[in-house]
């Protein structure tokens, strides 16, 4: 079995532009998500996630046209998330060319949304994004960009969402996010072993060894990172070569 472990750069989008310190020479407009997506695809990214962090619903309406331009530019799958709250939102983004959409806070408010999206479009395009935080020895779900505690155990919510039709889990350990201190390995393994769908680990990538750990000790199917790629701390070809040499199946 040679199913490859996937490396997934994440692009944060605000008002149609990428945010976070993107540092690439040779990109004419580093704030242009289309150019950045094409760059990562060409560098060997296995998938991309576009996360819209635009604050207002009004400004978010431009997202579908951005998704359409990304879909034309790249030849790898990509997921779009951020503020998706209805089956209509899902339909609009899939029709624009997204391969998958991710649901987060809206699914917590209305768990039926997971099932409705899976029924209408198939589980394969429904990613449940979960912001998870360690508190008093266990991991709990947070909503609204990690700001609000829900009091729900992460493993319970993930199991429920998979039963409702989520086809993949994007698990972000929010107390690791941005720390570059490594992924939450035990938690990732616990969740990956609790469900029958792929789990994408997110939060904490700081070096290539962290990716190796999350694929071995963490049992993740894929790993997502943003800053480490944007700031050119780690290049995708170097990371993949390292993983391959370390015995991990990756697409090179």
């Amino acid at each position, binding site marked *: 079995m040679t199913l490859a472990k996937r490396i997934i750069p994440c692009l944060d989008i605000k008002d149609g532009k990428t945010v976070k310190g993107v540092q690439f020479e040779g990109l004419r407009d580093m704030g242009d998500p289309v150019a950045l997506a094409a760059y990562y695809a060409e560098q060997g990214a296995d998938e991309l996630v576009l996360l819209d962090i635009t604050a207002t619903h009004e400004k978010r309406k431009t997202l579908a046209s951005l998704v359409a331009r990304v879909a034309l530019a790249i030849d790898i*799958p990509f997921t779009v998330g951020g503020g998706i709250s209805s089956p209509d939102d899902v339909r609009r983004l899939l029709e624009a060319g997204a391969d998958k959409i991710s649901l987060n806070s809206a699914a917590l408010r209305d768990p039926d949304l997971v099932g409705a999206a899976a029924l209408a479009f*198939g589980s394969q395009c429904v990613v449940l994004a979960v912001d998870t935080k360690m508190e008093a020895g266990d991991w709990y779900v947070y909503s609204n960009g990690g700001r609000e505690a829900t009091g729900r155990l992460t493993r319970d919510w993930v199991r429920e969402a998979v039963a409702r039709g989520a086809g*993949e889990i994007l698990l972000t350990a929010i107390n690791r996010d941005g720390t570059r201190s490594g992924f939450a390995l035990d938690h990732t393994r616990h969740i990956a072993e609790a469900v029958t769908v792929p789990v994408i680990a997110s939060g904490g990538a700081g070096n290539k060894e962290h990716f190796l750990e999350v694929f071995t000790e963490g049992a993740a199917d894929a790993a997502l990172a943003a800053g480490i790629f944007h700031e050119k701390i780690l290049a995708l070809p170097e990371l993949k070569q390292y993983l391959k040499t370390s015995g991990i199946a990756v697409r090179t």
Partner: protein
Amino acid sequence: MDTVIIQYNAGNTRSVYNALQRLGVEARISSDEADIRAAGRVIFPGVGAAGPAMAFLRAAGLDKLLPSLEQPVLGICLGMQLMCRYSEEGDTNCLGIFDQDVLHFGTGAKVPHTGWNTLQHLSSPLFKGVDENSYVYYVHSYYVPQGKTTTASTDYMLPYSAALQKDNFYALQFHPEKSGPAGARILQNFMSL
């Protein structure tokens, strides 16, 4: 002689259209019988469930048209499965172009089979210039076992058909439109048949 991408209720027509655009091919998207019959090449994409897709094809009369086509036809993912005889998905009778049944992966590994996996035993003009063990992108829960018409295999729990060919009918279980340079080459090869 233009290329028509068949529009139906389970199509990822936009992704295939975009991939052809990147190759410089201006395809048309249509579900019109005369349009499809007159096309130089036909692409039959698919994402979704077999039962509703076959019901749509029957209602549109495409279930009779597709097996009668004589130009190169390329089925992708669900499109390939619908070109087989029968699918366990929804206990569905399909088009019967390939004398094969479509089975569920069952348990034993994560399903759907999602992500990049490798191609082996390549034997079709579609794979000209594509290396053995090239990675391509898969998303599927049902598979076609290996058989006489198999022209490439992939291993997930067991070796199964990554590609089929019979006469002018070609089919791929993976998504060439999402498979990076290897996928682009395969689509280019189809356009050169």
